[in-house]
């Protein structure tokens, strides 16, 4: 009986190990991080800050007049990306933040180079940036279902 019992123990252990590993792998592929009130509120606050800056471009404000605020905003975005990177299973949100950062960096660099932006462009850029933040906020909101 002893050999049979040993075989059963080995099979049971193997099953447990494989099961745990398999579930963990599947879980990491399919599930996302849990919803965070703090992240949700940060997303909304940085959206408001970004749109407020672009609103100034609509009035043909020179870049120099907003440069300090732009630096402050971009620093906050860097801090937010660092915070998001610490959350587990959060790669899509981190990638979304990097896309928003890239678009804003490109926008502010253009503003800096040209001095001022066309009012028509600033109007459309505001709508586009608002949409990007809305997708980010909706992605965070989706995580409520898994929380």
């Amino acid at each position, binding site marked *: 009986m002893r050999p049979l019992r040993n075989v059963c123990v080995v099979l049971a252990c193997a099953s447990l190990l494989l099961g745990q590993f398999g579930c963990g792998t599947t879980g990491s592929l*399919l*599930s*996302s991080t849990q919803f965070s009130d703090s992240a949700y509120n940060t997303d909304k606050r940085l959206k408001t800050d970004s749109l407020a800056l672009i609103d100034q471009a609509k009035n043909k404000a020179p870049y120099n007049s907003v440069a300090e605020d732009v630096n402050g905003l971009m620093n906050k975005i860097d801090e937010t990306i660092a915070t998001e990177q610490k959350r587990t299973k959060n*790669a*899509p*949100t981190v*990638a*979304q933040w990097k*896309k*928003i950062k*890239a*678009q804003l960096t*490109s*926008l502010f660099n*253009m503003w800096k180079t*040209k001095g001022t*932006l*066309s009012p*028509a*462009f600033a109007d*459309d*850029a505001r709508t*586009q*940036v608002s*949409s*990007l933040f809305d*997708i*980010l906020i*909706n*992605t965070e909101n*989706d*995580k409520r279902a898994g929380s």
Partner: protein
Amino acid sequence: MADFNQIFNDIKSQLGPLAEQNLKQFAAQGKQDAEAFLEQSKANLQKWVQQLANKEIDEAEFRWLVESQKAAAEMVALRAVNAGTLQTEQFRDSVLSVVVNTAVSAITKGQT
């Protein structure tokens, strides 16, 4: 100014082969998604092409706007990744690259 209808005809002519190449098993659905996206983007692109022609915006600004539309599609795809549904979104992303490349190329040619 660039012929906007021609731009869209060029884009649409590239959708079929792309659907076959990237999403063979979901070709019909993928093409529907791509066309739905194009319809959604069409108003924006049409407006920006007109603004560029009227010199209300310059080429750098036009490019930024088109790139922002591409970024929006990529972010929608990432939202789908977060929810666990990826394949159709990958296709949409590649279609967006065609939209961006074709539209910008046509506009650039139209300006020279």
